[in-house]
């Protein structure tokens, strides 16, 4: 029995890395669930190639999952791992540069064969040549120990036994960080219930991993990370895609309307289609369309019929949907377009994150075609963003862009589950009766007669007697909606559509600035998924005694009404973005503000360190 010393830590970053087929995402997911159940705050970053099974043992085939957990509020998945689990040479090589010297590396030595080493261009074995001396390395023959632990199974082939090695690693890590494994056992039972031999092998491997830590002398220290202090409530762990799907279900429930999703499979958005497809019980209809254009067309057709029409996609899909979104602008019908952004252009980096679709969402259509744009700031925030997108779409009868991204989509964090009755009331009325008179005083329906407050036109759905009318993508006469080529009418309608979208600013919160000392001269302004890294960097900078203000935009169109005033208050404004400065470009144009852009496009979130450095330099610059 091990007499491992228990050491308390306030935070840990673990990265599991292996071949695409090694089950690293599953291992990470399970460790995350157990960590969440333990009460730590956490944030995760899955990172995997677009290829389902790239050639085994090669660098392109490496898949990893990083988890940051702590006894305090966690804002990012962590810059650098404290522990790397490397299942093969490729995983070690691909990840080593991120691992600080002195950190712990668990290595599956079974895979360090001459052949596998040469696949990644290593002539000598780093386990023997001293090149890993500055790290704390635990060499473990994970594959063979797992196979040995499963020696009694006569039904499984050696290959099948080897595949359980990820569970062995999970068991060992769970022991190291004092995580319970019961929930993972229950999970395995539900996953492999119909395959008893595979189930038994996975559970045996999981327990063997735990027992290995417990009984061998290899590990002298066990760690404990105490639960984080979080607001009281019921919590669950969620990814951004899942929260977004649940937000759409909740929005439809609160709107008391059916929801119709028209969607074409695309990474990294498909999980929303998958999730919503399961929720027919909630009146959700999902239609897997023949292409991206049909996906949005189906959603628009459903909206025309009175449902909440939603389409989910990524950047390449948005490009194809552009014309239909323009039609929705012209028809003035509700529509929610979820763009889970990924690296571009073209196919780009399907599984990696980026924020480079902002300008596409804002301007990627012909004509003056204003569309409200909102962006969630964290995986759990995707839930609230979905409700807000539906609110704007149905209240203003307009398409709305919801810009998530690959990091939010697949990353996860604990989410305090809201009370359904406390969610916004999203009910809006359909038109039921004529709203005007013709020249002779007879009641008529005017499809483009607007609500004076919102400038929204009536939502008059087919099946409503007396309101039969025709709408279309050709310019419409004010009020009647009849085809009109009149120059003054077109100018009026262009301005009116813009004014309607601008007016949404009346119903959104002012931009709030976090400036605890009130004397900061530098403002960091972010949007979307950069919230976590920016907040973490701001915290780091403040810990050095410097003052820095932080604000975050949820609404990218229209901006909160006080945005210009906020920008005017600071000597330096830093806008970090995972693009080449798209928000900064707009802020400069709209507010003539001297915004400094800080950009990275590596397919990965910002690190806290690089952001903190940048903020530090700006503060230095003006205090000189």
């Amino acid at each position, binding site marked *: 029995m091990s007499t491992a010393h228990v050491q308390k830590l306030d935070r840990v970053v673990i990265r599991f890395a292996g071949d695409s087929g090694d089950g690293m995402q599953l291992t990470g997911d399970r460790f995350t669930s157990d960590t969440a159940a333990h009460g730590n705050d956490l944030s995760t970053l899955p990172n995997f190639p677009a290829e389902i099974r790239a050639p085994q043992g090669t660098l392109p085939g490496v898949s990893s999952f990083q988890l940051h957990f702590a006894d305090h509020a966690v804002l990012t998945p962590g810059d650098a791992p404290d522990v790397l689990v490397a299942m093969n040479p490729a995983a070690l090589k691909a990840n080593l540069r991120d691992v600080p010297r002195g950190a712990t590396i668990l290595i599956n030595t079974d895979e360090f064969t001459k052949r596998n080493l040469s696949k990644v261009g290593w002539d000598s074995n780093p386990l023997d040549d001293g090149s890993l001396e500055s790290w704390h390395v635990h060499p473990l023959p994970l594959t063979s120990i797992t196979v040995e632990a499963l020696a009694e199974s006569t039904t499984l082939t050696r290959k099948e036994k080897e595949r359980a090695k990820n569970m062995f690693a999970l068991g060992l890590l769970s022991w190291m960080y004092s995580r319970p494994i019961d929930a993972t056992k229950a999970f395995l039972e539900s996953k492999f219930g119909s395959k008893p031999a595979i189930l038994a092998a996975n559970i045996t491997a999981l327990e063997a991993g735990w027992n290995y830590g417990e009984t061998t002398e290899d590990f002298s220290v066990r760690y404990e990370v105490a639960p984080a202090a979080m607001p009281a409530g019921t919590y669950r762990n969620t990814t951004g895609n899942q929260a977004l799907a649940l937000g759409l279900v909740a929005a439809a429930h609160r709107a008391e309307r059916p929801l119709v999703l028209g969607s074409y499979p695309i990474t990294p958005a498909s999980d929303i289609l998958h999730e919503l497809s399961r929720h027919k019980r*909630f009146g959700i209809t999902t239609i897997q369309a023949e292409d991206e254009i049909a996906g949005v*067309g*189906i959603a628009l*057709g459903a909206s025309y*019929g009175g*449902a909440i029409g939603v389409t989910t996609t990524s950047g390449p899909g948005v490009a194809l949907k552009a014309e*239909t979104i323009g039609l929705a602008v012209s028809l003035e019908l509700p529509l929610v377009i979820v763009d889970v952004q990924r690296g571009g252009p073209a196919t780009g980096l399907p599984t990696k994150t980026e924020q480079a679709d902002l300008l596409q969402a804002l301007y990627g259509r012909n004509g003056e075609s204003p569309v409200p744009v909102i962006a969630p700031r964290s995986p759990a925030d995707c839930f609230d963003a979905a409700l807000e997108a539906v609110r704007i779409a149905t209240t203003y009868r307009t398409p709305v862009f919801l810009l998530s991204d690959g990091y939010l989509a697949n990353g996860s964090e604990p989410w305090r589950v809201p009370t359904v009755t406390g969610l916004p009331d999203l009910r809006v009325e359909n038109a039921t009766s004529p709203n005007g008179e013709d020249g002779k005083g007879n009641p008529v329906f005017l499809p483009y007669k607007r609500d004076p407050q919102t400038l929204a036109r009536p939502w008059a759905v*087919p099946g409503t007697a007396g309101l039969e009318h*025709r709408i279309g*993508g050709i310019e419409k006469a004010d009020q009647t909606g009849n085809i009109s080529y009149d120059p003054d009418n077109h100018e009026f309608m262009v301005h009116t559509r813009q004014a309607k979208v601008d007016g949404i600013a009346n119903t959104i919160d002012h931009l709030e600035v976090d400036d605890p000392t009130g004397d900061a001269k530098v403002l960091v302004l972010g949007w979307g998924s950069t919230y976590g890294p920016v907040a973490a960097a701001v915290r780091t900078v403040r810990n050095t005694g410097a003052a820095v203000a932080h604000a975050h935009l949820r609404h990218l169109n229209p901006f909160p009404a006080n945005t210009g005033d906020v920008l005017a208050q600071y000597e330096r404004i830093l806008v970090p973005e995972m693009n080449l400065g798209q928000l900064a470009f707009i802020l400069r144009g709209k507010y003539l503000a001297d915004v400094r852009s800080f950009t990275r496009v590596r397919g990965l979130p910002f690190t806290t360190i690089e952001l903190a450095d940048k903020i530090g330099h700006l503060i230095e610059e003006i205090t000189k």
Partner: protein
Amino acid sequence: MSIDLGLPHVGHSGIAGVPELPDDADRQTKRDFTSDQEVRWCPGCGDYAILAAVQGFLPELGLKRENITFISGIGCSSRFPYYLNTYGMHSIHGRAPAIATGLATSRPDLSVWVVTGDGDALSIGGNHLIHAMRRNVNMTILLFNNRIYGLTKGQYSPTSAPGTVTKSSPYGSVDSVFNPVSLALGAEASFVARTMDSDRKHLTAVLKAAAEHRGTALVEIYQNCPIFNDGAFELIKDVDQQQARLVHLKHGEAVTTGNDDAQQVLVRNETGGVSFVPAGEADASRVVTHDVTLDDPSQAFAISRLDGPDMTHVPMGVFRAVERPSYDDLVRSQVLAAVQNAGGPASDDDVSALLRGKDTWQVG
């Protein structure tokens, strides 16, 4: 008065579930379906005749007018919804079937019609057209085929005969053509028919059969464009010639053409295809009896291939009308079953349970 297409009784009508006019309501007339908008097609356009036929036919359905919706794409024909006093949407080029799929699937109480043209449906919107037919969404697609792009002022279309000289093909078009009926049959369409703008009775009979059909009904309507492709169908409109060329399909009967003196009858030939032979020379065992209900579309396809750019033999009528579950019915029944099995529409508690999921923990 009306033409008998000989179609078998339909089990589940295409307009089942769409609210009907109450018995004591005034009879609808063509005027009820005429909007206040001035019709802006060119003088002599075949679209006028089709519009009049549709406006005249819709009252026959006996449906509440507000439950009828026409969705169109872009092109001359796609202006159609503006002239009908129903709900209507003039959408974007080629996308009407997709938009109609969303509407039809979410609203079983609507009679959904798509109006499109040969460019709209077969070129830019080809993908949506074939997938609507494959899925068998309950809608009627009226494909006005004038074999030319009219609204863009006369370029060749996917149905323009090879060699057609237009502004974009001054040396003659080298494109091969789509036969819309063959295409529809290949795309698993459950109802496929062809008719002509100038034959009001036939057009009305086909519209009626199409509306009765549950699932996607594709109706190709030959339509003359007097400006850019005048006389495209003259060979089959000309009274002297049409009798020898038109093949009026009637379910349950032999497929014939020609007048009484020179009647020809369709027979299966040895290579698996079909061809016309003089009636007196036909081997009775090889004579093709038209059957719209055949699950195997091969015979309908063979008949569709009689047609070619030279219009020697042009089949008119219903090629295929088979019963197949419609997509929207299937989608709705899955949702309905899920709701019913869960004890009815979701309550706040049900949504709460969904949000919580299986793995929660308490803080505080």
